[in-house]
């Protein structure tokens, strides 16, 4: 199962936009993609106008009452793209998870229980906070993508996140396959942005994605229209940069796995 979480501790770094755009591009390229909106704000759900049907199982009930996760999935306007929407129950997810054994692995288990698994890629969009839901989402993901902005606060929060990831992975004996830091809203004309980029290149070289997303108002316009930017303005900087991110991730996500030695 190819799964990717998009997460950063800092808010407003473009997690939802990145999740939605990447999901859309991968779906347009023929991959079956499942988006999971784990952010209680539900912006990804709003972006794709995804709402559970009347009486349909919600993610909360799937994780807490162990109802099949497949029953929570809704369709989007793209036939290859599916969504597990956020609902108001997400606000109670953390407190409900507290009493559950093996709570951190609930989403991973629920995903693995879908058989046969029809999705080529699962993208999990997280809110900017460290809660049980964060653990639940992160432990269901093999790849972690961390969008950062070219400012000092993003840089500082990245250090906190790396410390958290290091400790968490050691404590839970969990290891991601890959962790990528993605520079978002970069403006090369601003010296401070360039300075920030140089710092990332110096101190996060191993994790820094060799592509970046430049600042472009088309993101906001597309979000307002609730259309993925690659459809709203396919020739814009925003769309082209997003495609470059997809170009970078696609081969490493879908690379053929080498057979394990027996």
């Amino acid at each position, binding site marked *: 199962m190819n799964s990717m979480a998009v997460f950063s501790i800092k808010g407003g770094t473009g997690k939802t936009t990145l999740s939605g755009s990447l999901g859309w591009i991968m779906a347009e390229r023929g991959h079956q993609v499942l988006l999971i909106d784990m952010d209680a704000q539900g912006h990804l759900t709003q972006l794709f106008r995804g709402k559970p049907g009347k009486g349909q199982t919600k993610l909360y009930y799937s994780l807490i009452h162990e109802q099949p996760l497949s029953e929570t999935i809704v369709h989007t306007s793209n036939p290859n793209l599916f969504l597990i929407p956020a609902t108001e129950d997400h606000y109670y997810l953390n407190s409900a998870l507290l009493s559950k054994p093996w709570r951190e692995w609930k989403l991973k288990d629920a995903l693995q229980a879908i058989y046969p698994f029809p999705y080529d890629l699962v993208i999990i969009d997280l809110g900017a906070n460290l809660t049980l839901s964060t653990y639940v989402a992160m432990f269901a993901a093999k790849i972690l993508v961390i969008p950062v902005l070219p400012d000092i606060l993003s*840089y500082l929060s990245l*250090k906190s996140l790396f410390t958290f990831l290091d400790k968490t992975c050691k404590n839970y004996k969990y290891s991601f396959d*890959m962790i990528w830091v993605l520079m978002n809203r970069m403006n*090369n004309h601003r010296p401070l942005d360039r*300075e*920030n980029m*140089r710092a990332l*290149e110096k101190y996060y*070289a191993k994790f820094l994605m060799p592509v970046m997303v430049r600042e472009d108002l088309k993101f906001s316009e597309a979000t307002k229209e609730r259309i993925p930017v690659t459809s709203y303005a396919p020739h814009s900087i925003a769309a082209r940069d997003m495609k470059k991110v997809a170009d970078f991730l696609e081969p490493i996500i879908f690379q053929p796995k080498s057979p394990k030695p027996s």
Partner: protein
Amino acid sequence: MEDVYAANAPTEFPAPKEQPKIEEPINMEEKQNGPMKETVDRWKKEILDKIQYLKENFDQASHDREALSQEIDRLKEELSNSQERAQALDKKLAETMETFNNLLDEVSGALRT
């Protein structure tokens, strides 16, 4: 300013299992210039397209002007010919009227005698 970044550089790193190595170190210069070059190339293409479009428009306008000029010359020539014909006709009419008046005078004279 560099100190802020150095002072807050990460000290603990998670260890992903399959993190691919980026084969070529990211060249800041290239990264800075890459998007800029792309933008400049796009602008260049847009400007060249615009020039081509204007040139085509200009050529078309020149061609139209030439055609109009020829049409004006033709019409002027036709007007000049028509004026000449009108003058000839006027002259002929005057002669005819004179002949007619003379005839009338002769008829009147004959009637009186």
